[in-house]
């Protein structure tokens, strides 16, 4: 499953430039980035709860990514793996498959001591997070919390 997600993550984030040029993504790509229907179903259709969870996510995630950046800069593989694992959990809570797959890749790279691979994936995760926020807006959620 994780291998599959990681594969999809690479697939979707590969054309980085096209994502920036075209803010509104194709619906099939949107679903891989964030599947609103699945997310809402898991929450029993509670829109208020969904926005609350997203608010927590939107505060917590940049903080974790900042810590991950520091871990990468200081070449700390254990901390890289730990934060990759945490971020995998956060993205998984939203059903954000692409970002979850990338975070998993960072966790694995950290465990294997592959600093370059982890850094490369971190850049993809930053990009994936930006894309996720775009898709959340398109899906009708607020991302300014």
């Amino acid at each position: 499953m994780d291998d599959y997600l990681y594969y999809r993550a690479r697939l979707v984030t590969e054309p980085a430039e096209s994502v920036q040029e075209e803010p509104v993504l194709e619906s099939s790509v949107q679903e891989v980035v964030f599947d609103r229907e699945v997310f809402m179903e898991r929450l029993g259709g509670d829109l208020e709860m969904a926005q609350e969870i997203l608010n927590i996510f939107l505060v917590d995630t940049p903080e974790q990514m900042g810590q991950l950046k520091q871990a990468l800069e200081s070449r700390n593989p254990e901390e890289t793996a730990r934060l990759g694992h945490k971020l995998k959990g956060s993205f998984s809570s939203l059903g954000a498959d692409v970002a979850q797959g990338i975070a998993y890749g960072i966790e694995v790279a950290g465990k294997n001591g592959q600093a370059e691979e982890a850094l490369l994936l971190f850049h993809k995760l930053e990009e994936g997070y930006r894309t996720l926020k775009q898709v959340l807006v398109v899906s009708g959620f607020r991302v300014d919390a």
Partner: protein
Amino acid sequence: MRVLVVEDDMVSRRVLVKFLEPYGECDCAEDGYQALEHFQKALDAKDKYHLICLDIMMPGMDGHEVLKEIRRREAEKGIHGLDGAKVIMTTALSDRGNIMEAFRSQCEAYLFKPIDRQKLLDQVRSLGLMK
């Protein structure tokens, strides 16, 4: 119902609390050590948890170790079988291998992440903790 949610990821933790707080009083722990502190405090106060949602993959002390310690401490107090806390282990879909280990550690149920509210509530109901 008294609930302890043990989960290292903040978003996952808050999701579980959001799901469960309409049905009981929820405490949270960020790791296994904190979980055992909460558990012991509740045990000493004779106000034990009815339900513990326990993440398997946590840094430091993982869910399996925490559960073994919970059961050991319960046994010390003469709490056995159905009188113990009901424990639902939570894990990523890719961690299937962990499930058998979880049952060997005497958990009552497991759920794959991301957690679905209905599945969680159905599980809690099937454990007899709510109607």
